[in-house]
């Protein structure tokens, strides 16, 4: 028998990572008699992308020290994404991000002070340095205190959103289960915030054995934000902009402190510059209206692309010239090591095993497998309403459908009523990183409070039949396992038993990763794809979807979690492929190249790509939405 618990909340937060913690804080600040509930798949003290810690805060304006202006920031972010961002959303989180960082400072996060200026030590123009081993633990303390320990549901994975029976456009909560004891939770909420992070393991990771989990983005980033919202029919945006990052080889140690703070060069294998030989070609293909290759900070995607051209010319790999900037036994060595120890310890484990001394030799830098994210140098996620004072209220010449407009009353509300997004889940506003994600959580929560006050006389209805059918679906993989338990005998294998009536999570995951890698611009094809390949990917994904529905099996609660993570990843993958297929140009050549349309095409594609999925029919709809530049462009 399934044990079911109903939980009533004013605001439900799905995922207590950076954005979810920010939402928890702000929701309780504005609404003292609200019950705010966090459903968190792991343990909030160490969950999400910051579970290991971080060594920098990548988004901080420094307004009080007049270090930057918000306008300049929007220009920078817009340039980095080759012209396409929701400037209202970017401006909005950027103008608030400093207060978030000052709160972190007050709470006890060790941010490196700059005694000369009274401000913080800058890593780069927008980044500041922290001793961030306990970053998430500190932020989680604030979230726990804000909502009360009794309202933090650790180890509860949310699998489905709940819709109102009378209004298919209204989200009224979510369903999930405790991954330790299998209790099903039905959360009924007046407002729901999706902050369940980004997606790793949608594409085949570079390491396939024991190191499978060593993706750059953590293996627990299960693309749930997207999977949940796609299935509920929320409009998604920019899913094609899934991206890759240059990182130290195998350990995926970060490059920021080396490049920005220590000013370490990256060269090709022969010590030569990787940018100059390709500048002319890149300029020809990717200048666009924004003249991107000549921006003061070269866009991430173009730098990545130039490096890859070097590798393909046989002059790889890229080498980080640490021997020129790291000196043994000095401050620079402590910085170099802390950068890893705070957020990617594996890199040090590898160096210890390889006897690698950064002060003596350079180290290889490669690009990772692609990730689906909305908070880094990329912008996948839900299409959301902008803020009151920054989003154009109406765009004439376009349909009134929210999927074409920038504003419908509540900041960060998705196209579905009562459903908000934040952090990796919220699209078209990149570069939030940790501080900006927390800030966006705050924005979404404040707006959610306003929403529930405006709708205080609305009764939250949940349909028993709908709930029951979701629970049946949710539990089916367990039952399927029990049903055929004794029919097939196989020995213990690396993967799982072979059984013609079952697909276990790892088998499905490997299938997904192989499709995405080989057809949708993964690392094994050097991130190149074309129309034929993408169509083939869709065909194979359709089989996978059907197999999931008919064969997914789980031996225990833990595997049931893995199975539903897989489902969220599959839906996300389909969105990614459909978006890549729709956008007939190459805008971010470092992230992927559409070989059949290898150039940037501003005439036709200086637009957002939006989509909507209908779970009943399995049909997708995709369309373009113009980019409105609120800050003069170019």
């Amino acid at each position, binding site marked *: 028998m399934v044990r079911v618990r109903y939980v009533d909340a004013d605001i439900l937060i799905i995922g207590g990572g950076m954005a979810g913690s920010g939402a928890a804080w702000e929701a309780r600040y504005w609404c*003292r008699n609200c019950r705010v509930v966090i459903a968190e798949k792991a343990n909030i003290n160490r969950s999400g992308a910051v579970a290991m810690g971080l060594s920098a805060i990548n988004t901080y304006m420094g307004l009080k020290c007049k270090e930057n202006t918000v306008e300049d920031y929007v220009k920078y972010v817009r340039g980095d994404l080759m012209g396409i961002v929701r400037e209202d959303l970017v401006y909005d989180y950027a103008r608030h991000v400093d207060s978030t960082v000052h709160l972190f400072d007050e709470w*006890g996060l*060790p941010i490196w002070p700059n005694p000369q200026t009274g401000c913080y030590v800058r890593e780069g123009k927008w980044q500041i340095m922290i001793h961030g081993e306990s970053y998430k633990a500190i932020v989680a303390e604030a979230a726990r205190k804000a909502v009360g320990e009794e309202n933090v549901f650790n180890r509860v994975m949310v699998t489905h959103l709940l819709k109102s029976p009378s209004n298919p456009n209204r989200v009224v909560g979510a369903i999930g289960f405790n991954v330790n004891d299998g209790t099903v939770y039905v959360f009924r909420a007046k407002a729901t915030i999706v902050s369940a992070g980004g997606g790793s393991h949608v594409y085949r990771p570079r390491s396939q054995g024991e190191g499978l989990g060593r993706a750059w983005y953590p*293996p627990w980033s299960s693309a749930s934000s997207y999977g949940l919202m796609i299935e509920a029919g929320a409009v998604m945006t920019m899913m094609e902009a899934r991206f890759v990052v240059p990182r130290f080889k195998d350990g995926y140690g970060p490059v920021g402190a080396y490049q920005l703070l220590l000013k370490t060069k990256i060269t090709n294998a022969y010590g030569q510059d990787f940018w100059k030989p390709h500048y002319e070609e890149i300029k020809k293909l990717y200048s666009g209206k924004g003249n991107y290759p000549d921006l003061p900070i070269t866009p991430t995607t173009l730098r990545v692309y130039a490096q890859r051209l070097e590798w393909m010319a046989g002059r790889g790999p890229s080498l980080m010239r640490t021997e020129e900037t790291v000196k043994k036994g000095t401050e620079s060595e402590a910085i170099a090591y802390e950068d890893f120890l705070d957020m990617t310890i594996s890199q040090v484990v590898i160096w210890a095993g390889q006897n690698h001394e950064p002060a003596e030799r350079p180290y290889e830098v490669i690009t990772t497998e692609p990730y689906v994210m909305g908070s880094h140098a990329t912008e996948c996620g839900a299409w959301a309403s902008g803020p009151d004072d920054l989003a154009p209220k109406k*765009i004439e010449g376009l349909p009134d459908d929210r999927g074409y407009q920038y504003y419908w009353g509540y900041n960060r509300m998705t196209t579905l009523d009562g459903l908000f997004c934040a952090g990796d889940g919220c699209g078209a506003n990149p570069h939030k990183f940790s501080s900006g994600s927390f800030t966006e959580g705050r924005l979404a929560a404040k707006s959610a409070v306003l929403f529930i006050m405006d709708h205080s006389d609305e009764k939250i209805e949940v349909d028993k039949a709908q709930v029951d059918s979701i629970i049946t679906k949710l539990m089916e993989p367990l039952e399927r396992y029990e049903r055929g338990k004794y029919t097939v005998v196989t020995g213990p294998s690396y993967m799982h038993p072979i059984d013609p009536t079952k697909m276990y999570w790892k088998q499905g995951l490997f299938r997904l990763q192989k499709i995405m890698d080989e057809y949708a611009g993964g690392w094994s094809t050097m991130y190149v794809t074309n129309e034929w390949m993408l169509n083939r990917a869709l065909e194979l994904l359709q089989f996978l979807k059907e197999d999931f529905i008919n064969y997914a099996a789980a031996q225990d609660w833990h595997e049931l979690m893995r199975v539903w993570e897989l489902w969220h990843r599959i839906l996300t993958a389909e969105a990614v492929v459909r978006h890549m297929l729709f956008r007939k140009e190459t805008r971010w050549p470092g992230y992927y190249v559409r070989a059949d349309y290898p150039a940037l095409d501003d005439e036709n594609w200086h637009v957002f790509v939006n989509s909507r999925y209908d779970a009943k029919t399995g049909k997708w709809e995709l369309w373009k939405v113009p980019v409105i530049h609120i800050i003069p462009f170019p």
Partner: protein
Amino acid sequence: MPSYVIPAKCTGCGDCVNICPSHIMRFTKSGLFGRKAYNAEPEMCWECYNCVKHCPQGAVQIRGYQDFTPMGGAVEVYRDEKTNRVYWTIRYRNGTIKYFVFPIRTTPWGSIKPPTEYPEPPKELLRTPYLSCEHEQLGGNKLGVELPRYKVPEVVKVEVRG
């Protein structure tokens, strides 16, 4: 396997099981010596070291991913919430040892003032762009400047082609 438990040191307290973000630290079936923790799914381990940091017995260690890490090196950590420092020892395969120590927090654990201890915000400010701690009436202004604004046209006309 990325993290592994030394059974003789493990008391079965469950701290590692409780903290692992990947939900892969698990207990063996209780035997003569009680339950022991182990990493049940090493290929979904991120080497985040949380099980290592949170084990009160120092019973969890990491052996680098076999598919790319030569054996014999080690990274050890001791995290102390009283002195608020994290102590690292890096042992190279060739015997080289490096020590590092970094601060982890500047305030005592549990000292954060929750949002509900700030004065209750005036409702009408809900309809302004200010967040908590960004205005004199909202617990002070931690931005250090007046909230930046930008003038945006209310209605934008676009021409739709194709």
